[in-house]
């Protein structure tokens, strides 16, 4: 008798669902990064002042805390994530204008961009191919993030270059940890919302780029 059971076993369905979240996350990540680059170029062309960076980050953070989690389960979430990432890109443009005006600015920006891409691709590839569960890092990286936020608040007013350098270095390591943590959670099917997954990875990439830019700017005497 011919086999008429065309149902997919539970484990296969789970794998298909996980792969779908992974694919959607990377597609949305590529689109939001592209959109950020576009808004950053607009910001550079308009020569937006540097205080715009702080305004963009404040508004984007508030939207990330209050609006995005409430809309992430509906189609509105796509619009919100493009708004948040577009805003961050626009703010980033004002910082990039400042760096590009420096003598070695274009080289610094290019190195920060290449370094960020290498870190993201390397860590994502490692997390996906090793198939390890990096969830054990959760408590450690969230605790580290809270300590770093306190240091950032202090340095907003203290403006110490050495503290700034330490914060940037810590952020690069913490965000690298977040990439491992988030990617392994998506790959293992623990994260099912691709909008929130994209937002997490986008923030890690954004923070690595900004921190790398700051480190290379300070160390390159710019």
């Amino acid at each position, binding site marked *: 008798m011919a086999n008429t059971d065309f149902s997919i076993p539970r484990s296969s369905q789970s794998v298909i669902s996980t792969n779908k979240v992974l694919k959607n996350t990377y597609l949305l990540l590529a689109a939001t990064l592209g959109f950020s680059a576009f808004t950053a170029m607009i910001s550079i062309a308009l020569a937006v002042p540097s205080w715009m960076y*702080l305004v963009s980050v404040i508004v984007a953070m508030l939207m990330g805390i209050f609006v995005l989690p409430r809309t992430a389960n509906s189609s509105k979430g796509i619009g919100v994530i493009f708004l948040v990432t577009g805003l961050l890109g626009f703010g980033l443009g004002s910082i990039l204008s400042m760096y590009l005006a420096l003598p070695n600015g274009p080289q610094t920006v290019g190195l920060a961009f290449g370094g960020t891409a*290498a870190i993201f691709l390397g860590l994502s590839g490692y997390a996906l191919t090793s198939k390890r569960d990096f*969830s*054990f*890092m959760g*408590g450690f990286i969230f605790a580290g993030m809270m300590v770093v*936020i306190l240091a950032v608040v202090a340095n907003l007013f203290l403006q110490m270059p050495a503290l700034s350098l330490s914060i940037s270095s810590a952020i690069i390591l913490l965000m*690298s940890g977040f990439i491992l943590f988030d990617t392994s959670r998506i790959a293992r099917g623990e994260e099912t919302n691709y909008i929130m997954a994209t937002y997490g990875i986008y923030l890690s990439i954004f923070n690595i780029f900004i921190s790398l830019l700051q*480190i290379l700017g300070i*160390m390159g005497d710019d």
Partner: protein
Amino acid sequence: MDLALKIAAAAVLVLMLFYLWPAYKHWQENGPKAEKGDWQAAILPLGAVAALVVLLILAVR
């Protein structure tokens, strides 16, 4: 203007701390504990990231 922006940014960052606190508590209490070799597997790529940053610094100096 500048000081007002800094105060607003500090306020949002403190708000972020309150937002992160439940996530930290959740992962601290319910998150899986590291097994043998787990930290080694995490430190290896993080060490590579640190090495890459050092290389980039050398490139701009």
